[in-house]
């Protein structure tokens, strides 16, 4: 994996890679869950087929939706993909031009969430309103914690730029973790199901009206619009996993150009796979929490992150 500054081309390549591989990760998680439940499950490439199907279909839009509603899926996808550009995939080092740091990434993801909720409210349906309000109940608990975790790792590096943070993580692993990193990692593990919309916070496979959070906000979209939203949630998932691996997992060893790239890509794939397995295991082991218990669950992550920050500063 290359350290040092990365050119624009590489950044764009990484961004495209993330978008393309996002659905694959979802497919892997679904397959793992199916296997853990002793069924065959759909193929790993099923999300791609679903996306293709959606993009071929026509759009049906509610009468009550405004003109802005058509723009929502596009903007959400754009924000999420832009966030993807900030994640170091094969590079470990700041990009050659000012791109944005971890806070920008979190801001873009928050923007995407906000736009989704606005879209859900815009259509005026009951399910949209419910889903939006529930999602927004969880958001204020999740986003500050993410920022605190980023800060606790950034304090040591002196910068919040993700590439620099990844480079600073170095080539060794657990023994190099500061005490606060354990707590920060625990906080991230607690938050991952929330950011990716999985059990125990939200059930991605359900369409029962009382149990939907994220899905509730997508109900009004159809056709290519829905395809964009689905692609955005796949990308969001892989971006979050990439954030965690950049902050906490080591980059692969330094190498020359082509082999270094391949090695870096392979290491990235391995790290994402580990986190995906974690998500699948959590989804298979626990039940979805009732909505008013979710803040208690997230509070654990909150306290871990706060303690991590305190351990760094004190």
């Amino acid at each position, binding site marked *: 994996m290359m350290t040092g500054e990365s050119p624009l081309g590489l950044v764009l390549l990484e961004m495209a890679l993330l978008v393309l591989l996002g659905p694959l990760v979802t497919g892997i998680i679904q397959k793992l869950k199916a296997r853990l439940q002793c069924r065959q499950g759909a193929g790993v490439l099923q999300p791609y087929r679903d996306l293709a199907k959606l993009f071929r279909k026509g759009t049906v839009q509610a009468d009550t939706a405004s003109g802005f509603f058509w723009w929502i899926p596009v903007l959400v996808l754009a924000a999420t993909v832009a966030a993807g550009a900030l994640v170091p995939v094969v590079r470990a080092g700041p990009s050659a031009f000012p791109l944005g740091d971890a806070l920008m990434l979190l801001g873009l993801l928050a923007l995407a969430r906000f736009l989704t909720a606005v879209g859900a409210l815009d259509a005026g349906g009951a399910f949209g309103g419910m889903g939006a309000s529930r999602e927004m109940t969880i958001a204020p608990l999740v986003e500050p914690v993410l920022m605190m975790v980023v800060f606790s790792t950034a304090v040591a590096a002196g910068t919040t730029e993700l590439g620099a943070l990844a480079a600073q993580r170095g080539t060794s692993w657990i023994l190099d973790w500061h005490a606060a990193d354990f707590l920060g990692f625990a906080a991230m593990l607690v938050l991952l199901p929330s950011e990716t919309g999985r059990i125990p916070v939200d059930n991605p496979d359900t369409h029962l009206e009382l149990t939907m959070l994220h899905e509730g906000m997508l109900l009004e979209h159809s056709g290519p619009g829905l395809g964009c939203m689905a692609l955005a949630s796949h990308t969001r998932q892989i971006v979050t996993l990439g954030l965690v691996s950049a902050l906490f997992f080591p980059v692969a060893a330094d190498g020359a150009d082509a082999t270094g790239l391949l090695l870096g890509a392979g290491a990235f794939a391995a790290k994402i796979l580990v986190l995906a397995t974690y998500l699948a295991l959590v989804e298979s082991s626990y039940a979805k929490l009732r909505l008013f218990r979710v803040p208690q669950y997230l509070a*654990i992550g909150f306290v871990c992150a706060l303690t991590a920050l305190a351990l760094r500063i004190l």
Partner: protein
Amino acid sequence: MSAESVYTIVDDLGALLLFTMILILAAGQIYRAIYAVAAQSLLIAIAGGVLATATGNVDLWVIAGVTLGVKAMVLPWVLLWVVRRMNVRREVEPVIPVAATLTLAVMVVVMSFHVSASLGSVRHAITGNALPVGIALTLLGVLVMATRKTALHQMVGLFASENGIFFTAMAVTQGMPLIIEIGVILDVILAVLVMAIMVLRVRSTVDADIASLDRLRG
């Protein structure tokens, strides 16, 4: 291993101990709390082993082994046995909301780190961040006991407090005298047995949880 790496490992274990403490505070079901405190005792035993290799103090090996056997295995097993005998209800509501408990916990952690930071010379008397983590665990154990109404939760809080004390005691350079640590563990075992008997006795005669009896007032 070098002094630096010992500090780091002790620091890391301290962070993990704080994590288990958070789990105990946030645990809704008694099973989770018992498993968390067993994991905590396991971490203490590991800390003992690490410190034993670092300082070359053979006593610490014995203490680590006894902690592993007694506090990580036997005592949690006793608690689980009592839970099964009691047919206890799964969910336990704490006296104050979990969020408030966790906020207090963070304040306690910050305060203990602040207090130990003001003691300059403590770093070479007690390795790593064992002192602030020890203070935090002891106080948080009391917090668990104060915010829970069931006897078993209170006993878990007691264990957690004792873990905090043990962690600090082990990290004192050269460790505490062996006979004292063994005596302490024996006392803890006896106390737990007496408590378990009391809990079961009240359960069988009165069919209430002993910690929620509150007739004596004023």
